[in-house]
């Protein structure tokens, strides 16, 4: 568990009393909820961005998640850490959004999807033709982003929560409502897949 996840800080860098703020927010204290939201906002946004891979979608989704958290706060029983519950709401909201987006894409013309995918995968010729280090770095960055996008949302989330948030298998299992063994497997396969997809850039 990262200290930031369990002990977030306010704008002045001081730790915020999460249980107290949660208790106040549950009784309708909007200011307390605002303090909680602002403390966790960057991390929740980062997690959502890791899942949906689009800053605009992550921003919209982030707002929806916080509104949902406000509405559902009375269902938080307090038997788990607040951030576990919060990440779970965010995780399942993102999965819903990804599924809806996928359905919308399926409804769209299939041939419209292919050029987009090609555009994402293909490295611009200008980059491949430039020998300088910056172009190479950009090329690797594009390849890395593309490889990450090719993981399933479940594999990507498990990997991101582990590598970026530093959460344990048990914590990720609680957030995603999965078994510990499933999380272990997802992280392993995510690493393997990324390694395979990026092998030509080693």
């Amino acid at each position, binding site marked *: 568990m990262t200290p930031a996840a369990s002990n977030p800080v306010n704008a002045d860098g001081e730790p915020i009393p999460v249980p107290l703020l949660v208790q106040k927010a549950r009784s309708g204290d909007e200011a307390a909820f605002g303090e909680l939201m*602002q403390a966790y906002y960057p991390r929740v946004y980062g997690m959502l961005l890791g899942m949906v891979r689009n800053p605009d979608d992550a921003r919209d989704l982030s*707002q929806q998640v916080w509104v949902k958290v*406000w509405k559902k706060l009375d269902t938080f029983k307090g038997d788990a850490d607040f951030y576990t519950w919060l990440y779970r709401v965010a995780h399942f909201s993102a999965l819903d959004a990804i599924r809806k987006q996928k359905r919308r894409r399926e409804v769209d013309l299939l041939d419209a999807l292919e050029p987009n995918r090609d555009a994402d995968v293909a490295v611009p010729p200008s980059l491949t033709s430039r020998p300088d280090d910056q172009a190479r770095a950009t090329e690797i960055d594009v390849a890395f982003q593309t490889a990450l996008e090719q993981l399933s949302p479940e594999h990507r989330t498990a990997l991101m929560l582990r*590598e970026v948030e530093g959460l344990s298998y048990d914590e990720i299992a609680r957030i995603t409502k999965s078994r510990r063994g499933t999380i272990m497997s997802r992280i392993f396969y995510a690493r393997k897949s990324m390694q395979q997809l990026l092998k030509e850039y080693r």
Partner: protein
Amino acid sequence: MNRRTAERWMSMAMDGELSPRCQERLDAYLKAHPDVQQIRDEWGHLGAQLRQLPVTPPQTPAAAWQDVQRAIRVGQSEHTSDSVPTRHFALGWASATVAVILMLAGAGVWLVGLGNRGMPGPIALADRTQVEWIETDVPDAMSMVYEDETTGLTVIWVMMADPDQENDYAG
């Protein structure tokens, strides 16, 4: 230990999820297999790249909070306005029930009123028509006599028993 198991354990070890005993076995395997150790280095590099991904939110937390506050208030006002149709619906049902009761009461009053005014109607006929049951010589028949209000004629009805029905009963 085979390579697949070693890779799985390596992944767990990187995450601090491998038991000390398994860690020892893994370390021994990795000493003998430097190519697998190289994979661990690649995975480590992958993790570092993930942590370096730009995740700067497009808004400051304070600005995001203002948006969320607005969204919460819009949601609350929508929720409030949502309850208006529900109230209208309930009022509609109450009104409909009262209307039906009034209609039934009105119909009853109308029928009674018709009877009192001597108009032809079920209650009026029942009150005013004098029906008389009389004996008849026809076997198994009943007869009734009444005076028709409209025509002024005396009507005699003779009702014969149904032979088939009789047979059924006799069955």
